[in-house]
């Protein structure tokens, strides 16, 4: 499993619990598969999806300059 947290964040403490439930939701199987990719792989696939957009500027501007 790819670990993206800096090793410096981990501390050696007294024994800690394991979670007693599954974190992954059954209705989101794609998220676990997505996480199994490396960051580079995710970026490549995400950027490929982006190329399918017809009007990137419109999407960007609607998000960035909303009428608040």
């Amino acid at each position, binding site marked *: 499993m790819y670990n993206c947290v*800096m090793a410096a964040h*981990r501390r050696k403490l007294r024994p800690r619990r394991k979670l007693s439930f599954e974190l992954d939701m059954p209705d989101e199987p794609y998220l676990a598969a997505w996480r199994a990719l490396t960051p*580079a792989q995710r970026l490549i696939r*995400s950027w490929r999806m982006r190329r399918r957009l017809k009007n990137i500027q419109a999407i960007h501007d609607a998000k960035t300059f909303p009428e608040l």
Partner: protein
Amino acid sequence: MRRLFRSCERFGVEYLLISGQATVLYGAATFSEDVDLWLRPSPGNARRLLRALAACDARVHKLTPPLAPRFMRAGHGFHFHVARADDLYLDVMASPPRVGMFREAARRSVVMNTPWGRIPVVGIEDLVELKKTRRLFDYEVITNLARIRLLSEPSPSAALLRWAARNSFRAEQRASLLGELGVDTTVDECRKRIAVELVRLQKRDTRYWSRRLAERRRLRRQGLLIPQGTPARDLVR
């Protein structure tokens, strides 16, 4: 895209990748259409960014004030279009909301290997705060980030569980995490609490951007914004 980040490296720009692309790299989201950077807020670093953008033939996009200390400190966004880098819209902030100083965030950041080179990415905890926007979809992403942060620890501490519970905006996930902490609650109670929190967080972000967008519109009326389409090389002194 590689050219843009190589250019930043070549000119020594100090920045962190934040927002949408950072969430993709962490695996919490599958898509974002633009690139957002947190720039270390110094005049020298701003000049280096402009040189890096000039080398990529970037142009100023809409509602962009000069990259001057006054506007950087005020939390404004600076927007650029890099046509030659996959028609990229690049949004830069020097003082983004809710995340404190760049120096501390840089210490918590992670360098990731990407197709665009080795890129410093803001840490998960800071990214969670940055994503507390007025957009409802961002709270699904925050919930995913909390999950990813937990999954990276084989045996999470109580402090981490509390942080993850606070940043879970899916009622079932929050209720399960609070249960792990011995807190007696139900999914329904969590759902109600989350609904209240979402309204508060969305209003907070709306207030933040309303003020800044209003100031930019005032600057536009006064002719103080950089005209849209100005090449970045014209801004380099």
